[in-house]
């Protein structure tokens, strides 16, 4: 049987030697700036193909097809299809005539990380411009060849023909004639106007889906190379305080003496095992006796928010408009509450995996990541190699939803391969992934907001406490003793000026960030729509409470307080899709109690991440005897400007509605004073088929706008709509999520006490 090793390499040198390439390049400064603003370090590669060289971005082949060199990774969201759609559109090629190749650090343009759902927004314009410039150059060549002015030429499927004389034609492939030639990228080629789009805005089927359905797609977890060993890491079950890492007191190598060929590899506090056979590696990791020093340095789940509130913080005013204090003094109704959000886990369905082949003077690491350049830097650090000696080759893994442990896995594989002097494939066990994740940070919030006599929001103040993202990967912390450190933020690690009240016209507004030092907490990082589920849970419930005090329908109340047309657009669209009928915050406790066991309710909410406009409606059912909430139907609407592929975006919205339901109703990382205790799908449950709502996903299309993010923005509003629906159903407001029966039932009982 042929091994499933994928030997797909496409060195650029070979591509050039083969000839037949027209190549266009362009600069990247804007991307790097934008990434840095997001709080993600971008390291310019020392040996990247020169972005200013013409041979970096697009190649037209003699067979009349094109390769587009895309610097973004496919994370299961379909952006690789959408980016090719943009290129094919400007080149007037069919989708079957364009392809991209595997992302690798030494052969592909550095477009920074694939973060903030911004592949299409940031990468799209450059790919479009490059494609348009390539087309312009090809038309000039065709004009000479066909002895016809450019304005009389037409292109379809890469065939250039003369208007009115279609027999006179030449293909792109024939024009290039097997010789690469240079043209400066000017970025000035005219783009198609949106009225001429054939592919952009259409539901092109995703290119990765058929192979995934057939079981022929090569996920990272499927990559094997001859002679490789299997490795596993050995760590305490569940991380402790980020600052402590894990300290080894004793390793008893004899405890795996019965497993022939298994070998313990230790570098300071980093412990791993390698074996030729995967099962031997798995059972060795399980069987190896290691005594760990596990200090009781965590607050435990119960003491978490209290410790955050009493922590010494670094405070920063994020936004201060008008005179909040005076406005609160003069207001008609005021709402003031504290809210608490849990740590939540990326919990990829398939644990992270990496395969490293480290030689004395070079290393190849195959892995999943959102940023191959950042991964390369981290791998080089643990190996003590120069960055240019390390090559990172990207393979899509199981969905990651932000920075799960992928870099940790890449470093672990590299360390084990270096020590074993053989290629090593590492896959985390379930407890490694759940226990040592870079969790979405917990949050504590104090919010108050007020309305005037006419139901206009006049003042809004939000104080948020949370720590930032850890930057030291666990493998490096253990192997090198690198101290725990946090990224400086602010970006998505602070109180959000985009998602907190920003959709409403509020004259007096103050947002204050209270940064808690993260070393005495769990290791944190960006989890899909970072912090927004907590923000929306607090903010959109507050808006709902104001509507209730004003005696208004929550949809109408929001309408009255919005001026921005695009926010109004998504609000109206979701209300229309859900068939919203005016309800005066429908709950009346006497009536609901009389109705018996099952109470139904409906909630609405708005939200975003850093760009785009999203709205959601949730229909839920609450069992008043058990406190169990079942989401029956979620509606989500997203305006992300120009939507290149509505099919892909609808799938994203649909997935976000389900994932947000899971995060609002079920997900919470638990921990004792020594370590994380939610280590699998039983202790960290997520939504299942029988609990899954029906979903309605809608895209608001703006062909004349620039694209903005599409993979995160529905998370916050969908989660908040569920919380608002609970109030509608039962009159109960929850101040802490997830809304598990253990939390909801006591709240329901208090209501009648």
């Amino acid at each position: 049987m042929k091994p499933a090793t994928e030997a797909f390499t496409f060195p650029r040198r070979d591509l050039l030697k083969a000839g037949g390439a027209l190549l266009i390049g362009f600069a990247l400064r804007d991307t790097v700036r934008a990434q840095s603003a997001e709080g993600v370090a971008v390291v310019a590669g020392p040996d990247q193909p020169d972005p200013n060289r013409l041979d970096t971005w697009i190649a037209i082949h003699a067979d009349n097809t094109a390769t587009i060199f895309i610097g973004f990774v496919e994370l299961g969201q379909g952006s690789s299809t959408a980016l090719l759609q943009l290129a094919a559109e400007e080149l007037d090629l069919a989708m079957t005539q364009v392809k991209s190749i595997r992302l690798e650090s030494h052969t592909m343009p550095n477009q920074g990380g694939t973060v903030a759902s911004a592949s299409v927004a940031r990468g799209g314009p450059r790919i479009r411009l490059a494609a348009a410039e390539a087309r312009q150059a090809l038309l000039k060549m065709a004009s000479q060849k066909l002895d016809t002015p450019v304005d009389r030429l037409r292109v379809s499927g890469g065939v250039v023909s003369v208007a009115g004389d279609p027999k006179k034609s030449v293909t792109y492939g024939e024009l290039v004639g097997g010789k690469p030639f240079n043209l400066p990228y000017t970025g000035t080629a005219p783009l198609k106007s949106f009225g001429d789009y054939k592919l952009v805005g259409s539901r092109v089927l995703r290119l990765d889906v058929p192979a995934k359905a057939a079981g022929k797609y090569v996920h990272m977890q499927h990559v094997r190379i001859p002679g490789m060993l299997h490795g596993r890491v050995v760590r305490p079950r569940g991380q402790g305080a980020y600052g402590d890492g894990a300290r080894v007191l004793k390793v008893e190598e004899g405890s795996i003496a019965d497993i022939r060929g298994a070998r313990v590899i230790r570098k300071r506090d980093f412990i791993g095992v390698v074996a030729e056979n995967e099962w031997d590696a798995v059972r060795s990791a399980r069987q190896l006796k290691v005594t760990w020093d596990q200090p009781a340095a965590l607050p435990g789940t119960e003491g978490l928010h209290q410790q955050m509130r009493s922590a010494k913080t670094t405070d920063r005013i994020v936004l201060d408009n008008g005179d909040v204090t005076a406005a609160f003094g003069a207001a008609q109704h005021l709402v003031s509450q504290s809210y608490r959000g849990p740590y939540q886990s990326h919990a990829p369905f398939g644990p992270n995996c990496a395969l490293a082949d480290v030689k004395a003077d070079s290393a190849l690491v195959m892995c999943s990541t959102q940023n191959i350049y950042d991964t390369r830097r981290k791998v080089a650090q643990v190996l003590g190699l120069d960055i240019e000696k390390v090559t990172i080759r990207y393979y899509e893994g199981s969905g990651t939803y932000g920075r799960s442990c992928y870099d940790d896995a890449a470093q672990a594989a590299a360390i084990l391969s270096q020590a074993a002097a053989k290629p090593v494939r590492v896959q985390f066990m379930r407890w490694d992934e759940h226990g040592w994740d870079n969790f979405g940070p917990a949050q504590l919030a104090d919010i108050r907001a007020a309305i005037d006599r006419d139901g206009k929001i006049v003042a809004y103040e939000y104080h948020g406490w949370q720590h930032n993202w850890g930057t030291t990967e666990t493998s490096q912390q253990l192997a090198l003793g690198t101290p725990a450190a946090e990224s400086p933020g602010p970006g998505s690690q602070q109180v959000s000026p985009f998602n907190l009240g920003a959709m409403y016209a509020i004259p007096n507004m103050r947002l204050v960030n209270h940064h808690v030092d993260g070393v005495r907490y769990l290791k944190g990082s960006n989890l899909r729509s970072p912090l927004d589920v907590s923000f929306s849970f607090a903010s959109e419930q507050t808006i709902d409470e104001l509507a209730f005090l004003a005696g208004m329908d929550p949809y109408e109340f929001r309408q009255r307080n919005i001026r921005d047309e695009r926010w109004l657009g998504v609000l109206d669209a979701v209300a229309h899709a859900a068939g919203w009928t005016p309800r005066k915050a429908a709950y009346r406790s006497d009536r609901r109690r009389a109705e018996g066991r099952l109470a139904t309710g409906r909630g609405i909410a708005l939200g975003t991440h850093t760009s785009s406009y999203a709205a959601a409606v949730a229909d839920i059912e609450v069992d008043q005897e058990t406190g169990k909430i079942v989401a029956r139907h979620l509606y989500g609407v997203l305006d992300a400007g120009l939507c290149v592929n509505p099919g892909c975006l609808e799938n994203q919205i649909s997935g976000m509605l389900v994932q947000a339901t899971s995060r609002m109703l079920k997900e919470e990382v638990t921990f004792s004073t020594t370590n994380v205790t939610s280590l699998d799908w039983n202790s960290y449950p997520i939504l299942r088929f029988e609990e899954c709502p029906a979903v309605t996903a809608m895209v608001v299309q703006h062909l004349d706008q620039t694209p903005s993010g599409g993979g995160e923005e529905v998370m916050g509003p969908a989660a908040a709509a569920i919380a608002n629906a609970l109030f509608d159903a039962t009159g109960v407001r929850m101040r802490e999520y997830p809304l598990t029966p253990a939390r909801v039932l006591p709240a329901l009982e208090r209501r009648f006490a």
Partner: protein
Amino acid sequence: MAYGVRIRVNERSWRVDAAPDTPLLYVLSGELQLNGPRFGCGLAQCGSCSVLIDGVETRSCVTPVSAVGDRAVTTLEGLPAWYARQNRLPKPPALTPVQQAFIDEQTIQCGYCYNGMTIKACELLSKIPRPTEAQIRSAMNGHLCRCGTYPRIIKAIQRAAEAARATAISEHRQ
């Protein structure tokens, strides 16, 4: 201690050297280099590693290879042929109706859980050719999807049920 064990996978007989407690998953992905069954939790909690054993969906991550005996193991790779035998079709289709429906409904995001989803859905349709939505949810409930593609999977299974019926009718007419 490794020993020779004989297993029948996708209608072929294999002799592999493996310790008797080796979970079937590692034999399938390691010795046989199959990419269908894949590691998810190792605890029978998620369905990532599912295979059919004598037509019954089974978690290969907790099934010792020595416990398989002479029963027939079918992985995702062997599913179209299994489907053809089940339905007495003259030859295996390129994809089962369930897989084709996943494409038609564009259900998939990262796709990692789709080994289990496909195995379980095919098992369901072999037992209940036209399941209700409640039957689909109940049958699939032990399979997790982190991307949140459940609603589209439900639609796809309903679509596959329709397609399978139509195919069966036309094949038998020929």
